[in-house]
């Protein structure tokens, strides 16, 4: 599939890193990329189920583009949210909805996307897509 340009760049950056530790550390750095969903706006509705850590996401559609706000008490999870933010925040809804979670595998940040190993990424991705469809 064809990805939004800034996601393609990010995938390439990740592919240039060949050490798992550094790749992971780069994900950590991307935690700062989220649009913060302040902890006082964390509710049952924003909660991403199936994460070991508390992780929350809220999506809006603003003039046919996606806005995604999120936060987590795990920096890694928040870093994954940062990646998702780069991928779809401020993108047209149709582009966001056409995305599948495989890009995270291409990045090499997830060895596989099986539910048990994707560390909440898959749950987060699915929730965002679900919420988006509801907002639409």
């Amino acid at each position, binding site marked *: 599939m064809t990805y939004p340009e800034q996601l393609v760049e990010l995938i390439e950056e990740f592919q240039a890193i060949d050490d798992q530790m550094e790749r992971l550390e780069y994900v950590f750095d991307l935690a700062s990329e989220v649009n913060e969903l302040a902890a006082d706006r964390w509710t049952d509705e924003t909660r991403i189920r199936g994460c*070991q850590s508390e992780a929350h996401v809220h999506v809006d559609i603003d003039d046919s583009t996606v806005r995604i706000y999120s936060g987590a008490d795990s920096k890694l999870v928040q870093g994954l949210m940062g990646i998702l933010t780069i991928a779809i925040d401020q993108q047209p809804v149709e582009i966001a909805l056409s995305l599948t979670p495989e890009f995270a595998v291409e990045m090499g940040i997830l*060895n*596989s996307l*099986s*539910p*048990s*190993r994707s*560390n909440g990424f898959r749950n987060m991705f699915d929730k965002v897509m679900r919420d988006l469809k509801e907002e639409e």
Partner: protein
Amino acid sequence: MAIQNDFPILQRQVNGHRLIYLDNAATTQKPSVVIDAMNEYYTKHNANVHRAVHTLAGEATDGYEACRTTLKSWFNAERCILTSGTTEAINLAAHAWGHSQLNGRAIVLTEMEHHSDIVPWQMLSESLGNELRYVPVKPDLTLDMEALEASIEGAGLVCVVHTSNVLGVRNPIEEIIRIAHDNGAKVLLDAAQGAPHCQINMAELGADMMALSAHKMCGPTGVGCLLVNEETFQEMQPFMGGGDMIETVTLEGSTYQTNEHRFEAGTPRIAEAIGWNAALAYLGQLDLKKHHKRLLGIARHVASELRSLGMTVYGRHDDNDSSVVSFLHPTLHSEDFAHLLDARGVAVRTGHHCAQPLLNRLGISGTVRASFYIYNTMEDAVEFLNHVRDILERFA
């Protein structure tokens, strides 16, 4: 045909003779790929599953869950709960589904059932009072379908063995399911013997629950499953409690997982699931239909030879039956037969085969049972028959 080379145990000598393993209805042998898969797990990936962060735990979880995925597609089933075997699967069905859903309604069983598909229901009936109705077996060794129709009214569940472990008879489960569903009853299939011999399509059949064991289809001991359709799954209540099946635990009470883990309390059978998955992959690359036909041919030959030697053979060996040959000699005790065969390297089973009601109906207390599986050959059958003739000459 080099399939025998895949099974290291077939190289073995027993009492100075080549092993002729004809006890496949009790358990099957394992190909190297199954043994290797478990070795690989223990030497490279062993870890506890779920809530896993570290690499080994992720790999173990993937391996475990892959077995579930394979089973679902192999049997075209909506839900797959891994258990320690058929017996635990049926007990799970009785506790998790039966206790909450049967509401006093009758349970229809058949006289052909294995004890594992009788005793759990007798226990349920003892504590909840549900009536148990047994469909008789007719002299032609088939279920009395008229009796089934007569006993279905008001029943909540029909439990039937897909293929008899004593007779090899494959029951008319399509018709049984139709009758049951028409009358508002669900159907549980005991597929312990059916699953190894043919690829059962659960959704197509419309069965509600289906129980089976890995060890009877080239997989390891200690693992099996209960397959259930979504509707039935949603009706099931937790059975055993503990790790992995819960979502939260407080002193006041607990909430449970909503997927299959809800019924898999404690550290699961990880290596076993991985071994089973390898067994399914192994069977998947064989032409099981062709083997079934071949083995049935062997069974028919054996049955007819045994009859000509004066044995009573309990079985009809129709096209869909399994390759099991149960027989009895008029005077030589079945156990003596088995010992004398064992002295010649031949493994057969004797006794009631955990199907006493069926044997009572047949008016006998046990049979000698020779059962064939994919690695058995006509040569095995011929040698077996030669040994039988030899034994009869000396002792009968």
